[in-house]
């Protein structure tokens, strides 16, 4: 597309280096401008649907079907959000999603860190076999085991509770164990050995020494995991039937079905805005960490 031309100019105007530099930088400035325009046009495509979601949520039902479309509602209907708050299960959804996401990530991060420490820095029989065994778990896709898991949990009466979403996850997440173990492999063994000689217990070594070292990696994985659990949908729709017990994603999907027949698109879009917003805020705050750790997953994988 935009060809960054090399510099045949250097050969012709050998006499005046400042001149060539100018010619070159002018050309690269032109390329930069073209690139900027292309990227900006792309950015509009990326963001327009989301802006439209927000704008629709503030329209009247009539404006939704206006032709040509209205981008800025004449009178923003904030009332829709009030209606959503009182008439729908969005608030229950937020509460349930928070319960699941926080308990999974807080407890799960702890179990993952402990396991990663043991697998990276401790002597243990069958260590490699255990690690490789755990890794095979990644190869089993969730749809293959969702039916047996469902039957298991229904036998102990956990259908329509949040437990099936929380319990399997707090035993640890293999991907996170993998990354934390990788991260720990760059920590010298001599540090741990020294602490042992000083008489520290393994728990103390983990809590006082390993945790502070792996904190940045843990934080990044924690955020990514939180977002994944918050956005999860397949497992929640298997288990949660009662509206008060559903997570936010299931609540909004059900609202989509229920209110589409009434053509109440502002309400549906308002609920979608609420489902996206918390994660968007988390993203904007932790943007750098998230982007760095995502980039890291690619290079490590």
């Amino acid at each position: 597309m935009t060809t960054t031309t090399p510099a045949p100019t250097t050969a012709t105007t050998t006499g005046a280096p400042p001149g060539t530099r100018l010619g070159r930088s002018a050309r690269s400035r032109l390329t930069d401008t073209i690139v900027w325009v292309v990227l900006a046009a792309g950015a509009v495509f990326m963001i327009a649907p989301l802006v439209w979601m927000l704008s629709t949520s503030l329209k009247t039902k009539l404006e939704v079907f206006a032709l040509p479309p209205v981008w800025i509602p004449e009178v923003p209907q904030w009332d829709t959000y009030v209606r959503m708050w009182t008439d729908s299960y969005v608030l229950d959804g937020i509460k349930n999603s928070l319960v699941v996401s926080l308990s999974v990530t807080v407890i799960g991060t702890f179990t993952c860190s402990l396991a990663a420490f043991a697998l990276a820095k401790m002597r243990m029989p069958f260590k490699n076999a255990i690690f490789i065994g755990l890794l095979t778990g990644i190869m089993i896709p969730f749809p293959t085991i969702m039916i047996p898991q469902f039957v298991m949990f229904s036998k102990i009466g956990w259908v329509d509770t949040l437990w099936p979403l929380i319990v399997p996850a707090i035993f640890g997440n293999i991907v996170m164990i993998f990354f934390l173990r990788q991260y720990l492999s760059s920590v010298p063994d001599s540090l741990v050995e020294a602490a042992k000689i000083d008489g520290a217990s393994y728990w103390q070594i983990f809590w006082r020494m390993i945790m502070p070292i792996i904190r940045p990696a843990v934080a990044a994985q924690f955020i990514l995991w939180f977002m994944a659990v918050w956005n999860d949908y397949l497992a929640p729709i298997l288990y949660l039937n009662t509206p008060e017990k559903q997570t936010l994603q299931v609540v909004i999907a059900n609202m989509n079905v229920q209110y589409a027949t009434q053509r109440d698109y502002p309400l549906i879009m308002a609920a979608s805005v609420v489902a996206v917003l918390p994660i968007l805020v988390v993203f904007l705050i932790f943007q750098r960490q998230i982007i760095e750790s995502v980039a890291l997953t690619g290079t490590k994988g």
Partner: protein
Amino acid sequence: MTSTATPATAGTRPPAPDPAPAPPRRGGTSRLHRTEKRWALLFVAAPVLGYLLFILYPTLFALYASLTRWNGLGPMQFIGLDNYVALLGDERFRQTLFNTFFYMIGIPIGLAISLALAVMMNRKIFGRAAFRAIYYVPVISSIAAIAILWQWAYNGDFGLVNQFLGLFGIDGPNWLADPVWAKPAIIMMAVWKGLGYSMLLYLAAIQSVPRSLYEAAELDGAGGWQKFRSITLPMVQPVTFFLIVTQVIGGAMIFIEIQIMTPTGGPEYSTASVVYHIWLQAFRYQQMGYATAMSVVLGLLILVITLIQFRLNRRNAGFVVD
């Protein structure tokens, strides 16, 4: 990186990642080792237990259940390979397999666009961080909300997509209700949602390419396209491989978009994916045994495709290095 002989640098990086257990020097060490082992096993107990209970056991159970006729509640009736035989002649299952693979057309399209974006974003241009964030917003947004949004955007009369096409005098179809256009519609949405992620990984890979490579190529008079072909593309090859493998696995399990945007599996079942079909059979029609057989086939398919990819890539990588 290079382990130098000076002992001073030894502290920053251990020479060997996992040294063999040191021979016991004194009588006390073996007891210490036993304590260490006990603590270590305790520390890995939770993930190992979780693996056995929630992955291994359900997998074995699935293998058995796929050989039975079973509604999930009553007794399991062993019927051998009957479910698998039935699958071979199941028109619906074949169609959902076809649909699922069809969606994967979006993978190379998405990778090409995101690589182009990454190359452009590698330039030091104004507002680069803002661009990067904007392209990433769809990635972090909940797929349920995004599917709902796009279902509305694909509305034939009032949707954003057809409004936009209307600017160019194109009369767009009623996307999700049209057996021809429903699948491309879902592909476009998936590409849009995934661009930012692939772009980010590509950008990180491009930024780690040594500048000297490009400078050397420039001295040899290589043009922009040549530099891209013979430096950038091979250097980002590992990322391409990673993205293809993960996106094929993810694509094989596509479900949420389908279930939300086309609740009935689309016109003439044209959007239904394998997981959608499994979900419907298992949780709507209580055909648990049959659905489990399908899920086992899906799992095996994913496994085989992934292994083939690793095989091919190893050959590729070897070829590049040698």
